[in-house]
């Protein structure tokens, strides 16, 4: 995996750009509590009424305070932290389920494969957004973990289908045949022969799920149908719209979360694309000669 990253870094400018942006944002999210401790002490960033409302940016509040009397910088950082965390968790869950189903289906083939593929296809055509919102609305005490679980519910079929297709072609390769003939067990073949070769696809599937989960999360939060007890970037957008920050001339309150989200999505897509180009040289403009 380390080698793959190094090669992608060397060959693709897109990968470098995406990786740098993502590392900076994830780094910010990780050290967030260190940054906001001096401002709010040990209180939760989400607690309303900590300060005066609508303070302009100043030394103590670098970005001012919001309509609920909370420090804005603190809330952006907390929002970034939760949004990335939900995306990551939902990505891990859906990739794990998707990869297991995809591997099982593609490797076994036959009747099991047909049944699993049919179920996967059924889930893929259901528009998930209304159902996700409905589940989020009626789940009491929605935590970060349950939110991720709900988002993963509809995300796994996509990675399952992708992995299945890869496994189907890989199954026919000579080295897998050889492993079979030499008497290796199914699990040994999957983990020692196939998994290492599928790593890039696993990573791409993972990135895809993370983006999908974050898009859905922001979509649910931004129109105010999600939980209001977890601060995410989507919820910040919803608050900014609700306060009418346009008419107050405080555009940045809306623009910052939107811009950060756009950056996250762009960075992950760039990383994915960079990896794809490294794996499939036909996408690079230099290799195809007329």
């Amino acid at each position, binding site marked *: 995996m380390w080698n793959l990253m190094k090669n992608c870094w060397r060959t693709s400018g*897109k990968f470098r750009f995406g990786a740098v942006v993502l590392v900076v944002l994830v780094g910010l999210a990780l050290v967030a509590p260190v940054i906001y401790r001096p401002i709010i002490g040990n209180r939760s960033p989400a607690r309303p009424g900590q300060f005066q409302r609508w303070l302009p940016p100043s030394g103590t509040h670098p970005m001012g305070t919001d309509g609920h009397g909370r420090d804005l910088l603190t809330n952006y950082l907390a929002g970034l932290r939760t949004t990335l965390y939900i995306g990551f968790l939902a990505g891990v869950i859906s990739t794990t389920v998707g990869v297991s189903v995809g591997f099982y289906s593609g490797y076994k083939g036959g009747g099991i494969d047909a049944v699993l593929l*049919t*179920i996967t*296809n*059924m*889930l893929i*055509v*259901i*528009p998930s*957004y*209304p*159902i996700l*919102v*409905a*589940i989020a*609305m*009626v789940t009491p005490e929605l935590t970060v973990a349950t939110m991720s679980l709900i988002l993963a519910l509809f995300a796994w079929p996509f990675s399952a289908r992708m992995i299945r297709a890869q496994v189907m072609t890989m199954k026919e390769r000579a080295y897998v045949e050889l492993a079979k003939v030499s008497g290796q067990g199914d699990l040994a073949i999957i983990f020692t022969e196939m998994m290492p070769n599928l790593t890039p696809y696993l990573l791409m599937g993972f990135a895809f799920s993370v*983006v999908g989960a974050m*898009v859905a999360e*922001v*979509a649910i939060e*931004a*129109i105010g*149908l999600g939980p209001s007890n977890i601060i995410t970037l989507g919820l910040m*957008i919803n608050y900014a719209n609700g306060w009418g920050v*346009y008419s107050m001339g405080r*555009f940045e309150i*809306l*623009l910052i979360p*939107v811009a950060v*989200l*756009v950056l996250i*999505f*762009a960075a*992950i*897509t*760039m990383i994915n*694309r960079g990896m794809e180009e490294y794996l499939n040289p*036909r*996408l690079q*403009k230099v290799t*195809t*000669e*007329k």
Partner: protein
Amino acid sequence: MFKLMRKYPILNYYFTKFFAYFLTIFGALTITFFMFRLIPANPIENWLRSLEAQYSLTIDGGDAMVNSYKEKFGMTGTLWQQYVRYMYNVIFHFDLGPSFINFPRPVSELLAEALPWTMGLLAVSISISWVLGLLVGAVAAWFRDSPVSGTITNISIALSQVPAYLIALFLVLFIGYQWKLLPTRGAFDGQYAIGWNLDFIRSVARHSILPALAIVTVSLAAWILSTRSLVISNLGEDYLLYAEAKGLKSGDIMTKYALRNAMLPQATGLALTMGSMMSGQLLIEHMFVYPGLGQVMGRAIAIFDYNAMMGLIILSVVSVMTASLAVDLLLPVIDPRIRTAIKA
């Protein structure tokens, strides 16, 4: 019949596709039905509450009243009985039941009212981005070594996964609010008579620009990227070398050879996108208070209107599946390579 199918593989192909079509729709509806019913929500209670709020009166939700509504909405009996009754009504009578959000009007009427707005907005924006994406993508592939092409590609990659509603927020802020160039709410101005008169049509067009622009920005990026990689992968092929050797103009080679071979997958993609447009941009409509399906969804979810939500999902599932069935059935007719593959 099986004998016939063995003799003509193409029949087998069509049969499989039709079977998968009905099976997938049926399964998707079943999954959705049970998922909604298993969510612990109480739509009748919600609905009575919303009536109370609306008319500022107190409704004593006595058992008799609740039960009579339960019957009207098909919520009596065991879950299994409800399921059989619902599917029976949907499949044999195309009856989606009454809606809560606009009781007692049937769900199908609500959807039929909202549908033209959604289809109008999305069909236009999807078509625009498809045509533009194909052209820009082909040019970007052809001049793939120029810095302009590189910039276009990089911007497209960055934008391709950004959800349209984030772009919409920017557009509303700058074009709608800051510069006050275009309206950001609704689908037309109330002052004009609804119908085929110039003022009304102009008003509809003006209101649709911002939501359409948000959708086009993102989907254009995706079409540019896919066209570019399709055309680039064609560029190494022998028939292009041959065309060049024949002395054809490079513009002709690009449009009539390289782009033309990218058309088939892109046309398939267009059909599938059109199929998914029912559910693709619900949030955009919600943001722009556009009277399409997104509005219906927002209201339905707020009070947990089972029937309306199921109706929306059925509409979306059926259109996605129908579009992909149409593609599957047409492909062997259009593409001789697929015909050969089926026969083998």
